[in-house]
């Protein structure tokens, strides 16, 4: 948790933020043949952002966050298979269903401490996975949910084979959710979460209803994970039971650690680094790619606390100091 604490102090400058989002908009021209992969990166980024809220800002360790991702994915999928394929309605439904599940399960999750939370969240993930498996008449079981037909976005933009609409749609949703989350973490509510993460006992002594605040946060985080899941369903027009898998829950933890927890961009950068490493390493060495992924993750950890963004900040700080010294000399 120290790395998360240290990294909250670092905030990107406005030009860095502008550059980051401009680069993503420029993706239409910079990587036109890889828009499908880029959309997957954005969905992972949104999922990681939802996880950053609970781990990075409130210190809630979870190994079952895929439960909410999966609920969002299936809600949007089932809605579409029953004739409501309007994407924004699907997103809203996915977010609401996952948020409701988040609200109900949060009552179990926020009560305990780290290890209890780890157990409870893992159990929630496993329960939903098996439930989806068992209810195959509804979910399609291991074959997945087929027949998901998504209507054109706003009745105008069809989801094309090159993934242009999908990429634009994912980017817009990610950006809007990111703006909302950014406002939230800089509000009194967000600062209160940092206080709870760093010193829960003192926050109680200041009159904070700690559990109630964590329930609200966990619900918001689950809703965002649900939106990410719904996005995946809509752009792939399919739901696999893998959306609930333990692997997905574990991967989002890794993404956040790789990027840096407790800084909003950490989840986004971590998701990009992880998804691209996963994609290219598995393409380069289909049999033993996980070995190289493991080696890569160890290298990231050796870079020190704060993940990729933490390392970037340390290097830029060193360079700045060296430049200042040279200027003085």
């Amino acid at each position: 948790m120290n790395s998360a604490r240290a990294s909250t102090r670092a905030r990107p400058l406005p030009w860095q933020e502008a550059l980051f989002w401009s680069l993503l908009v420029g993706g239409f021209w910079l990587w036109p043949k890889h828009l499908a992969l880029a959309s997957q990166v954005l969905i992972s980024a949104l999922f990681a952002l939802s996880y950053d809220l609970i781990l990075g800002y409130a210190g809630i360790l979870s190994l079952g966050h895929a439960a909410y991702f999966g609920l969002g994915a299936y809600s949007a999928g089932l809605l579409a298979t029953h004739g409501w394929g309007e994407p924004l309605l699907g997103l809203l439904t996915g977010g609401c269903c996952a948020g409701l599940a988040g609200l109900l399960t949060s009552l179990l999750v926020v009560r305990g401490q780290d290890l209890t939370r780890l157990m409870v969240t893992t159990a929630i993930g496993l329960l939903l996975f098996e439930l989806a498996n068992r209810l195959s008449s509804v979910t399609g079981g291991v074959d997945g949910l087929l027949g998901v037909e998504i209507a054109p976005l706003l009745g105008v933009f069809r989801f094309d084979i090159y993934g242009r609409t999908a990429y634009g749609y994912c980017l817009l949703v990610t950006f809007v959710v990111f703006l909302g989350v950014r406002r939230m973490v800089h509000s009194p509510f967000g600062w209160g979460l940092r206080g709870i993460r760093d010193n829960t006992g003192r926050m109680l002594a200041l009159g904070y209803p700690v559990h109630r605040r964590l329930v609200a946060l966990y619900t918001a985080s689950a809703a965002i994970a649900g939106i990410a899941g719904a996005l995946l369903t809509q752009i792939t027009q399919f739901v696999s039971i893998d959306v609930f898998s333990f692997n997905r829950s574990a991967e989002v933890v890794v993404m956040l650690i790789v990027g840096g927890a407790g800084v909003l961009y950490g989840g986004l950068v971590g998701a990009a680094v992880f998804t691209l490493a996963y994609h290219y390493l598995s393409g380069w060495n289909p049999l033993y790619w996980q070995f190289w992924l493991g080696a890569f993750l160890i290298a990231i950890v050796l870079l020190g606390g704060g993940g990729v963004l933490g390392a970037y900040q340390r290097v830029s700080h060193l360079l700045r100091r060296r430049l200042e010294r040279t200027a003085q000399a």
Partner: protein
Amino acid sequence: MTPVLRTSGLGKHFGGIRAVSGVSLALARGARHAIIGPNGAGKTTLINLLTGMASPSEGDVYLDEVRVTRLRADQRVKRGLARTFQINNLFPDLTVLQSVLLAVCEQRGVAAEPWRPLRSYSEEIAAARAVLRLLHLDAAEDTVVRQLPYGDQRLVEIALALACKPRVLLLDEPAAGVPKGQSQALFRAIAGLPEEVSVLFVEHDMDIVFRFARRITVLVSGSILTEGAAEDIANDPMVKQVYLGNRR
């Protein structure tokens, strides 16, 4: 006049050990009331029971004659009961102003507001600065708490409690670890608090206790040995015997 804070037969047992037993205490409005006693007398446990940080094995706590025994710690704060801790219990990575703002925002009912940035809450920021001025911490408002000298960190402890706008302030050894000169200044700041804030404090330094307390309760082995006006306690031979030993 009804006491602002009262306990009735309050006790806490850890297995066979009675850390606090049958304590009936009344804190008058505007009090400057000290609890003294040797190490292990149960002073901090008593503060924990009063504030809801620990649940009692027996007895009750009343705030303005309303039973609050089953209320959580945060609910008691909302009713005007705030505390400081014997060992610094702060937010080391936040600045002094940010720390106090956390308390002010909750006290003023805006801490759950999720949209407006904290820096735009000018009234809350002004209120936090007023608390810092009261404790002469205003020059350090942008300093990260972990970088403050220990004595100033003790003042931040008190600032956090004061920012809750308490009617009853419980101070658990506020001068612990603070050099003598600084501790006098710290208590002068406490003595300068408005009369409507009733103060109950635990302290080991007898010079400070007899200088600032108007009433004193002596706690020994979890029970009240005696209680009275400061000058009576100072001359009580039983207190000298039990608490100060046989020294003259």
